């Protein structure tokens, strides 16, 4: 370990840390901090550029051997997740003037980076906690109704339980193997013969099911998503979900799975897809609907682990990218309103095409893509996942998953129906420039994925 390696390998993390320190200084120095959004946006951009540059350079190093390492794949994942966070910051500029929001987001992102580089289960645990703790506060930050506190508490308690479960699993694994290295888990997955190891594996997987909101561990998600403000929900639905799945990816590696684990990894996600899609049909709150949609999408994402080892990284990163971009487009294009409850209600979207045609088209594209309708990115992502599952020989699970995804078409179409097929009631209005800008920023890569998926996949 040399200081140069530490400096270079952890450059994105250092930039985030510098941003955090800078934001604290601004907070202390000025009574009315104004530039915090700009500062955090610049820091994020710099971190994305740093990660992308290191990835492009093919950089690989282990600044803290056995604890922390970077390689091109993890750098690419970092670049993707950090890039997904940038539009969130743009979105938040209208909502949060105070620097607290940005401080918390940057800290949480530092945790995400730790997860993506973790070599030991303890580092992974640290990363997970660092990522989650600021989010409990973020949910509560735009405290609007008493239910917000309830939702935040629910999230805190359930997420805490997941953490405890994870630690329990890790300690069992340590007891069985005497090692805390991440590959231990992958080895345990393949061997998994004795009860101790099996219990450890199941506990860790269940912990991630809670974090990713897989049925039946999903109950926190609809409440938390609804209670939080738009940028925070967008952050949870894209960055946190992506980070959790990438953490699972890091744990699983490319090892082939053995039979009992396959059942665990297929059945609960399948139930998630079905239940998420069914429950979303009844929602009238946009964020709650997106929460159920994200429960279903977590199901698709876990499906990706049924595929063969080398294809997993490609499938998960592509899916996370397509899914994240589409959620961000939808959140960025939501029409503004003075009252949060009104804004969140689906009725607020009625006739939006007549008021703000471009916002309506953007939300429409996002919904269709989430529904997996070609030629949008969501379809390619879903195809990639199911193709891998089918190629690995799990035909029944693939067909069941596809049929379950059919259930989701209705509620996405309902949003389109509200947007385009309701009569105009109000006069045309201007959208929020910055948020729509964030949407446009996401639309460009999304269309790129749609037109040239081959190029993106070949790169992953």
């Amino acid at each position, binding site marked *: 370990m040399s200081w140069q390696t530490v400096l270079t390998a952890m450059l994105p993390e250092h930039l985030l840390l510098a941003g955090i320190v800078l934001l604290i200084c601004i907070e202390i120095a000025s009574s009315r901090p104004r530039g915090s959004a700009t500062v955090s946006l610049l820091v994020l951009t710099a971190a994305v550029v740093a990660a992308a540059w290191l990835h492009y350079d093919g950089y690989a190093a282990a600044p803290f051997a056995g604890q922390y390492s970077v390689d091109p794949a993890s750098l690419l994942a970092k670049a993707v997740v950090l890039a997904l966070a940038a539009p969130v910051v743009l979105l938040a500029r209208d909502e949060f003037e105070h620097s607290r929001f940005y401080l918390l987001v940057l800290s949480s992102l530092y945790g995400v980076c730790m997860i993506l580089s973790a070599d030991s289960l303890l580092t992974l645990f640290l990363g997970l906690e660092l990522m989650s703790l600021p989010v409990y506060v973020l949910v509560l930050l735009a405290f609007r109704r008493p239910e917000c506190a309830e939702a935040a508490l629910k999230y805190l308690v359930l997420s805490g339980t997941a953490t405890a479960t994870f630690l329990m699993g890790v300690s069992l694994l340590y007891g069985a193997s005497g090692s805390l290295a991440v590959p231990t888990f992958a080895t345990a997955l393949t061997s998994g013969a004795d009860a101790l190891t099996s219990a450890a594996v199941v506990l860790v997987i269940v912990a991630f099911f809670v974090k990713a909101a897989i049925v039946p561990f999903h109950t926190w998600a609809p409440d938390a998503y609804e209670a939080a403000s738009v940028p925070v929900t967008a952050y949870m639905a894209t960055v946190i979900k992506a980070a959790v799945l990438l953490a699972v990816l890091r744990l699983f590696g490319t090892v082939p799975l053995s039979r009992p684990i396959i059942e665990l990894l297929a059945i609960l996600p399948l139930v998630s897809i079905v239940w998420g899609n069914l429950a979303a049909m009844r929602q009238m709150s946009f964020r709650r609907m997106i929460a159920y949609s994200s429960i279903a999408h977590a199901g698709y994402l876990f499906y990706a682990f049924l595929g063969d080892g080398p294809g997993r990284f490609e499938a998960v990163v592509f899916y996370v990218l397509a899914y994240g971009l589409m959620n961000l487009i939808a959140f960025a294009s939501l029409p503004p309103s003075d009252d949060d409850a009104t804004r969140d209600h689906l009725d607020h979207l009625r006739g939006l095409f007549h008021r703000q045609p471009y916002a309506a088209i953007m939300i429409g594209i996002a919904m269709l893509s989430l529904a997996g309708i*070609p030629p949008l990115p969501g379809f390619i992502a879903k195809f990639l996942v199911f193709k891998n599952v089918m190629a690995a020989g799990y035909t029944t699970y693939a067909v069941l998953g596809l*049929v379950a995804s059919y259930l989701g*078409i209705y509620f996405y179409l309902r949003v389109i*129906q509200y947007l385009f097929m309701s009569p105009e009631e109000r006069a045309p209005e201007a959208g929020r420039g910055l948020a729509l800008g964030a949407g446009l920023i996401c639309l460009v890569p999304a269309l790129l994925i749609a037109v040239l998926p081959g190029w993106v996949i*070949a790169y992953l």
Partner: protein
Amino acid sequence: MSDAALLNVVLYLPVLGIPLLMAAPHAGFARGVSLAVMMVQFLLTALLYARFDGAVEGLQFETRLPWIADWGVYYQIGLDGYNVLLVLLTAFLGPLVVAGAFTAIQKNVKLFYAVVFFIQFTMLGTFVAQDLFLFYLFWEAMLIPMFLLIGIWGGEQRIYATLKFVLYTAFGSILMLAAVIYLVYSINQTTGITSFAFADLYRSQLPLSVQTVLLLAFGLSFAIKVPMVPLHTWLPDAHVEAPTAGSVILAGVLLKMGTYGFMKLGFPLFPDATRLLAPEIMTLAVIGIIYGACLALVQTDIKKIIAYSSISHLGYVMLGLISIDLLGIQGAIIQMVSHGLTAGGLFLMVGMIYERCHSRELAAYGGLAKLLPLYSVFFMILTLASIGLPGTSGFTGEFLVLLGAFNSSWHQYQQGAGYPLVLSVGAVAGVVLGALYMLWFAQRFLFGGDKAPHRPLADLNLRETAILGAIAASVFGLGLFPDGPMQKTELAAKQYQELVRSERVAGAPPQQRLVATEPSTGSAP
């Protein structure tokens, strides 16, 4: 410009027209732009059609570029005998749909034409795609503009109708997607090659059980779109609630995507399963012919009469395709085009009368022949073409289909299977029923008592006359001179026949190998 590039221009012209529409300052400009774009597209397609050589086997004007290289997906489009007439039909109906909507659509005009453009793009794409992935992409992408078209500009029950249409179609598509993935990767496991190209898939060898399951999955999707009884219930709702343009697109082109799917993919990809299930498919086709005709007989809504007649007419197409007889196949192709022209034309005419009288109830009309002589002439032409009067396109199609069906079923009768012959006789009964419901409809609509509103009605104006004149001319053209189109499709019909007759059950060698290496598994599947 090379012809291959020209085909790409034809395909993407509507998409390129969308930004132009969005920038249009007012509705009139948007109408003009869309008509111009559609006209250019039709002229270019006509040029391609003229240059298409019926004596050349395989694809013409082909473009093949790697698209998703890692998965073996190619951007491959081209014209062949299967799709050349359907592409021409689609491009031909484009300007008519656009011009037909000039006065009918007053709400969200720009969006309307953008949606129509997108539909045109996806329909053409479905026909010209020569790669299964690309085909599926276009096939499924067509849902969304159609959802918008019916849902925004439709009648009172439009939301119900459009959701029903999309949910029906999407269910078929999702199973087809599963079948597509399974097909490609099961071929990969035996040959090691991952390819979505139709030409490669035609060489696939699959066990009969797998073929049957895959044919059912593909077939469900196609049968919903055709639609074949009993999966047809979305069609009357969609037709009745759709705006005129939507009905014309639905009847004119969209339904043919189903029969085209069977012709290009369903039957040739799984020939052994097709031959196994041929009696069942034939039964469904004949049930469709007769059931559709019977339902058309008792409808009181003008649009529903034509909607149910579509079910009946597409039954003939299916009958021709499943006969696996050269004449029957060619008849099926002609019948597809003919039905596109007549049903499309009839829906346009219903739209024209609806603009004048605001009613679709047959009971509200009567004696139009006196009030609207020109309109009545065109209506009779299309009615007679729909019945299959010699000299019109309908005759060529239906006659050839029946000839093919009898030819193949007589052959089977001599070998001891009498059932297909009974079905063929049943299909002839459909012709009689078809004449009955269409003539009765025309009689009540045009001639029956003097129930028409007691106010002067304007007869067809120049725009409407031009639209209907073009359709009538092509109906007679196809009826009197079917040689040209049939020459262009002959080789494709032969190829289809060969493919569907070929034995492609996964052969003995791989099974022997399986048994040899793993004796414990016993009999391999």
